[in-house]
Structures are given as C-alpha cells and as structure tokens.
C-alpha cells in the first residue's frame, strides 16, 4: 500500500463501493422475497380449495359455484390448446419473416418492416381483443369454420357448430400477439450469427438457401428456441384478448370450434363475482396452476437452451 492510496478520496470511494454493493444486494433480495411472499400469500388464500379438492381439482371438469364444486381441467386444457394453436400458426410465420428480414430483404424494406412487426407487440391486448371480437370472429365463423366443418367435419377437430368464438379464434389471436415477439428475437439471433459462418458455408459451394438452413439456423437454434419459448410464455398468460374471443365455455371438447376457457380467462371473468372462501380459493388455486405451468415451460426451455449450448461446446 502506498501512501497515495490512503487519501480521503479513495477511502470515500471504498465506502461508496460498499454502499453500492449492499444496495444492489438489497434490491435483488427484495425481488426474490416479493416472489416468495406472493407465492405464500396465494397459497394461504387458496388453502380452502386445496384442502377440499386435493388432486381432484386438477382432474375434475366441474365448475359449479352454486354447489361449490370446482375443477380446473377444462381451463388447463383450454390454456394448453389455445397456446398450441397459437404456436403452430405463429412459429412458421415468425421464423419465415425473421429469415426474410435478416437475410433476404432489400435494405429499404428491412427497417420499416421490422419496425411495423415490432409495433404489433405494442398494441394493448384489449384493442386486439376488440378487433378480434368484432372483425376476426365473424370472419372465422363464416367462411373459415363453415368451410372446415363441411369439408373436414369428419375430424373431431372440426366438428360441432361454428360459433366463431372458441379455441380456434383464441389460438389465432394468440398467434397474432406472439408473432412479433418470436420474430424480433429470432431476427436478432439470426443477425448475430458471425459472418465467418456464412462465408464458410458459401465457400463450400452452398446456395443462399443452403447457407441459411445448414449454417445460420443451426448456429442460432438456441436463440430461436428462446424466442419460441418466450412467445409461449406470453400465450399461456395472455388474458384480455383471449377472454374476449374464447367464448367462455367450460367444456373438454376436442373441437376447435367449441367455446372454452383458459386459466387466465377464467380468473379474469369470475374474480369479480366470486364470493365465499372456497370459490375465491379455487380461483386462486387456478392462478397457482397457471404459475406452475409457466414455471415448468420456462424450466424446460432453460434445459433445452442449456443443452444446445453445451453441445456447441467451446466454439464461437
């Protein structure tokens, strides 16, 4: 230690350092504590329902506030089904537009196009829901559902009366809402692939298409997967727009035309009228189930990403 390093200003700097590190520690612990406190509070409020129904809460299809019998299965099913429909529609469109915007689009199109797609994510979900209900749903009922019903009606998927509102509409609304997320993240992942990888593939005599499919996409696949999972996360939890177009049925129907509910839409549409510890407790337990599902999805996503990263090893 030299004399110089003991001057007042360095002492002060060291104190400042300490304060800063304590402060950031406090903030991060606070956030973790909020999460845990939230879980505990939800658990306490849901306790009457957990105690009464046990595991049958998850397997039962009843939801009868009058007789106070509650089961979550249709809502869980609706959540997973609508998100699945959303992803099936959104993933190819998002990846396609991400590839186009990053690799193929002429320069003058790139910025405006990605800007517009990202703006889609900024539209409040109630507006998308309103548009969905008054513009999209009638169109889905006639011609789409009527056509599907008359031509592919032998499949359970497309059986039943065409209501318009239902799983199909919810899935399409969700697709619209997650496309900007998946597109933006995939585009960034693709752009981040080093030029050396592209050139190495081109120098082997690859066409542009081969370069994209064999060098670019494999290289950034964990990023692409991350985008899809984030999209799925949003789809699972999306509430307002889905509530407006899913029709608020509570059935376990294989038909995409059937009105249904997701966990989020069920909670949103009933929290206002719920009375009694058991009813409220059941809604809160429903929320906990949604929390568990999204947690599970995130853990799976982490594992997938981690696995592909470790396969990639030490390479750039």
């Amino acid at each position, binding site marked *: 230690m030299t004399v110089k390093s003991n001057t007042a200003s360095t002492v002060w700097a060291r104190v400042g350092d300490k304060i800063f590190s304590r402060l950031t520690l406090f903030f991060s612990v606070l956030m973790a504590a909020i999460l845990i406190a939230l879980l505990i509070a939800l658990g306490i409020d849901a306790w009457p329902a957990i105690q009464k129904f046990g595991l049958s809460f998850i397997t039962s299809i009843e939801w009868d506030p009058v007789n106070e019998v509650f089961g979550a299965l249709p809502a869980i099913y609706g959540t997973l089904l609508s998100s699945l429909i959303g992803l099936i529609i959104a993933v190819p469109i998002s990846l396609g537009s991400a590839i186009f915007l990053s690799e193929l689009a002429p320069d003058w199109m790139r910025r405006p196009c990605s800007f517009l797609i990202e703006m889609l994510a900024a539209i409040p979900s109630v507006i998308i829901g309103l548009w969905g209900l008054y513009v999209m749903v009638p169109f889905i009922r006639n011609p789409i559902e009527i056509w599907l019903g008359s031509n592919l009606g032998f499949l359970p998927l497309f059986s039943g009366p065409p209501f318009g509102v239902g799983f199909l509409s919810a899935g399409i609304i969700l697709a619209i809402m997650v496309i900007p997320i998946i597109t933006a993240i995939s585009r960034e992942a693709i752009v981040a692939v080093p030029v050396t*990888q592209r050139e190495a593939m081109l*120098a082997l005599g690859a066409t542009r298409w081969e370069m994209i499919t*064999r060098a670019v996409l494999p*290289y950034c696949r964990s990023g692409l997967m991350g985008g899809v999972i984030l999209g799925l996360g949003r789809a699972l939890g999306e509430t307002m727009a889905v509530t407006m177009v899913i029709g608020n049925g509570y059935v376990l129907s294989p038909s995409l035309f059937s009105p249904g509910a997701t966990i989020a839409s069920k909670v949103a549409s009933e929290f206002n009228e719920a009375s009694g510890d058991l009813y409220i407790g059941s809604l809160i337990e429903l929320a906990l189930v949604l929390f568990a599902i999204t947690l599970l999805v995130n853990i799976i996503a982490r594992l997938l990403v981690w696995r592909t990263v470790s396969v*990639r090893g030490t*390479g*750039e």
Partner: protein
Amino acid sequence: MINNMLGQTVRIEAADPKHDGDKTTSKYALTVEDLNAWYGNLMVIQNISMGIGAQRITALIGPSGCGKSTFIRCLNRMHEVSEGGRVTGRVFMDGQDIYAPQVDPVSIRRRIGMVFQRASVFPTMSIFGNVASGISLARFWSRRRDLKDVVERSLRKAALWEEVKDKLDQPGASLSGGQQQRLCIARAIAIEPEIILMDEPCSALDPISTLRIEELMLELKKDYTVVIVTHNMQQAARVSAWTGFMLLGQLIEYAPTKEVFTVPKDKRTEDYITGRFG
C-alpha cells in the same frame, strides 16, 4: 511478359526452373486480367493482372489493408458476398472467365475452395459432419461416393486423421485451434476443388500449429494449386514458389519467391521485406 498497369513489366513465368520447386510451371491455374474491386465507393484493388501457376504455392504479402485478402476473395467470387463488394475485370480458369455473366458463383466456389483466417468450424456439427458438410450439399448427391471414404481421405490429407479417427462424432468445436484450422482445410479438400485459397490461415495459431499447416501446404501443392495470403514474410519465403507484394491495392511486384526476397526490383518491396515499414 505482362504489363501490370504501373508501367512496369513484370515477368509472370519463371524463366529459370531452379527458382521454382515445381516442374509444372507451364500452366496457369488462374489468369487474372485487369481486376478491380470496391467496397461501396472505396476502390481496394486496382488493376491487378497476374498468372497463378498450377500446382504450386503462390504467396501474397503486404502490409495490413493492402487488399491482399480482398484480392483472393475475388478469385472465388467471395468478395461480392461482402456488403458493398463489387468487382470488375476477368479471371480465367481453364479458359473460362469466372466473372462471365452466365457463370454461377456457386459452381466456382465449388472448384475453388477457401480456408479463412479464423477457423470457422460449424459448431453444431460433429468432426465428421464438418468434413462432410460441403459434400452433402444437396446438388452434389449425384457425385457423392461413399461419404466415409471421402471424409477419411480428406482428414488424412489434412494430417488430422490420426488425431481424430476415434472421435469423429464429437463436436468439431472441441478441437484445438490448430486442429480446427486443419479441420477447415479437410472440409475444403473434401469437395475436391482444383484450387485452394488460404487467407492468413496461420495468423491465429501458435508456432507448432503453424509449422504443421505449412507442412500440409507443401503436401497439398502436389494435388492442388494453393494461393496463400500471409502477414508472415518468413512463411511466404518458406512455402511459396512465387510471391506477390501488394501495396495500397496494387500488385507492386510479382516474381519467384527467391528473387522477391533476395533481389527485389522495386524499392517499396525492398523497404517492406527489410522491415522499413508495414
């Protein structure tokens, strides 16, 4: 004899075979005529004309930014892949101008392979997959023989087989830097090109790995024409038959390596190789 647009007359053929380690100097693998290249509006290659002899090693030396990397990227039509990259002039291969409008750059790159400065192993592929990656590009399926044989042969030629034969399924990125570069060479050889361009292949490697790559180049010239860009003048002197000195996008001097390093004709070449600049 050819005029190199600087008013100097440059011999492009070895008059005396003893300057050249090879006997096959009568044939050019590539003949470059009036080549210019740009990045956007910036002209980086000015009027280069030269013949590149078949089955020997031609080295290009020069200070950083002199355009030597850009120049060899013009030889397999990789320069136009870069943002703003543009080329005029002609490069003849077997009498065919590779810049003729009807020529597909993809087919040129298949005949003229390239090894880059930084080993660009495909990280999601195994060692085997990396070597096979060029061969298994869809349209070569008709020419595809037994993939295994080709991979083994390529790895042997790249002097990597003994080190990796028991772990072909491991990721290519698990290899060391020098091994990765040899893997890239194996990958380039696997598609059986006629010419191999190497853009500073050793600049990121330690001396031992560098030595191995140099030995490999000497081995490769038996079957291939090799063009190497290097910062390392000793390397050029060790491996090449002919050396071109480039400065500010121009080819200043192009002659048998021994002449360039012992009796350079141009003052600027002399200054560079004696370490006065660059």
